[in-house]
């Protein structure tokens, strides 16, 4: 879609009418591509016997205690993943840029490694490495959060690091320090406000990854939301579709809020450099 827009704008200069129509068509096609499956799912989830509208699927869903417990578990794990990602990725990327730029290539390479390692291997590795010494930890579902932090690194680290690179971060740091700012002050008062977009992007990606991850949770036998969806899909088709729609809403509402909120702030403060 991105590739189409400049073309439409080029046409806009000469033939505003055709450009407008073209844009509308693109929007319609792309919109239909995303919306039709959702509408179809929604319709299927409320169709009962003889095409009667019924919300029984949703009712049984909300009455199912493991629906709520799995959703709650996934949210907790996702929040923990977001926090840990922030604590790991933000200081690392900034520190590498400012203090040890020659390690940048290495850190970059390390951040993609999780893409090349299948989740199964990660799980087996973790079980093998920690099972004997940290049995207690492995029985807590929160062990998932650090695993997700690592697995989501290719997305979260790169997103944030791109934002860091788009700033002349060394000069900003030196300017802040020359004015008497401590490291904390520099980070909170100067760098993070200018890295807001990258930071939000990175954290959303990490959170979304944690909410949607199935393989690791399933292999470690934790009943997270995606695991629950798969399980219920085996027995009750309508409920499975209903639960997917609920999941979509659960993801969509906070994401939209963050995007609207984040953009609004960004526009008001007019941060040009980070975008």
């Amino acid at each position: 879609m991105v590739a189409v827009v400049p073309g439409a704008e080029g046409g806009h200069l000469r033939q505003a009418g055709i450009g407008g129509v073209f844009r509308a068509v693109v929007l319609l096609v792309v919109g239909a591509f995303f919306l039709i499956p959702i509408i179809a799912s929604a319709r299927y989830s409320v169709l009962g016997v003889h095409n009667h509208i019924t919300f029984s699927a949703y009712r049984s869903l909300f009455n199912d205690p493991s629906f709520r417990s799995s959703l709650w578990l996934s949210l907790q794990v996702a929040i923990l993943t977001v926090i840990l990602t922030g604590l790991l990725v933000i200081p690392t990327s900034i520190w590498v840029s400012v203090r040890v730029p020659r390690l940048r290539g290495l850190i970059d390479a390390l951040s993609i490694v999780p893409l090349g390692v299948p989740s199964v291997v990660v799980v087996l590795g973790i079980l093998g490495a920690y099972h004997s010494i940290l049995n207690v930890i492995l029985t807590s579902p929160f062990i998932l959060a650090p695993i997700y932090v690592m697995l989501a690194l290719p997305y979260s680290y790169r997103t944030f690091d791109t934002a860091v690179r788009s700033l002349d971060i060394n000069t900003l740091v030196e300017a802040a320090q020359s004015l008497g700012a401590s490291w904390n002050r520099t980070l909170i008062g100067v760098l993070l406000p200018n890295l807001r977009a990258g930071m939000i992007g990175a954290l959303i990606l990490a959170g979304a990854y944690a909410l949607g991850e199935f393989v690791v949770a399933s292999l470690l036998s934790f009943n997270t939301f995606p695991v629950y969806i798969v399980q219920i899909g085996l027995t009750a088709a309508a409920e499975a579709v209903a639960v997917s729609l609920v999941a979509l809403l659960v993801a969509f509402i906070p994401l939209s809020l963050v995007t609207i909120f984040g953009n609004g702030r960004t526009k008001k403060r007019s941060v040009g450099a980070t975008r």
Partner: protein
Amino acid sequence: MPHGNLRLEGLKKFYGSTRALDGFSLHVQAGELVVLLGPSGCGKSTALRSVAGLERLDGGHVFVGDHDITQQPTAKRNMGIVFQHYSLFPHLTAAENIEFGLKIRKVSGAKRRRRSNELLELVGLGELGDRFAHQLSGGQQQRVALARALAIEPTVLLLDEPLSALDAKVRVNLREEIRRVQKEVGIATIFVTHDQEEALAIADRIGVMHQGVLEQLGSPTEIYAAPSTEFVAEFVGKVNRISGTATQEDMVMTREFGSFSIGDSVAVGSKVSVLVRPEQLGVRAIANGSCRLVEMSFLGSSFAAHIRGSGGSKLIVAVSPDESIAFSIGESVEVFQRGPTLLTIADIDEPEIAIPAELAKLD
């Protein structure tokens, strides 16, 4: 806050085997503007950055007044810095940028605003306090950066090639502005640049740097008219280098351009090169001269006459527009001396007396 003087004693900074600073010393008086001038890689920026504490020194001391601040971190040094790259905080307005350092010093809001307004006026941007960096031109951004650096009432002002990202006209304007503001505030200032014209225009004193040491320190006129080394003579201003043989202690017969009286005294008979500025030479047309006028280039206020000698050496002579009319390209001319030469250097490449090979190597 009293503005201190700045003393740098034997600064050393090595990057592997490269000596960026090799025993660099400099005193800057309160209220004085010293320009560090030199080609890239001469150590001038390293010197400035180590004054600011942005580089860790391998030796030497930095004093402000009587205080040795060599070990202090940048944040505690209270020095105002303007960087070569645009350094305004993009998420803050011009006024908020200026107030940043004051906020850290816990100055009250009303005081901060008063101070930022004063400084915006001082740098000629009274109306633009609520603009963000990307809404300002490069020159305006550097003005705000200057105001921000001055807001904290620094003991020393450090300007690291603040004009090099700007285009020529803005550069000339802004350097005069910087000089005016610096005089008004009366603060010890180090200004780093590779632009000799800029240095000559604004400095109280110029320190010409070469390979990590101060090659010469002096007023702009001293540096220009009486360079102490060949490097300074050739880096600041245009200079001709003419080789010849000393016929008297203060007279050199050049091979292609006639004889010159020199300011230095040299051994009679020694082979030397004479350094002389184009404006200290004159040129006139004569019949059957050994030199030719090969080109006349227009420089605005004067012309540069390019002269070729019989042996192929080239020389540049400054010619006034009135004089220039009389000449035609390809004409036979002779060169004469109008003013003093800069320096006379012994030519070690071509010794007059054959020196045994071992001794020659020691040179």
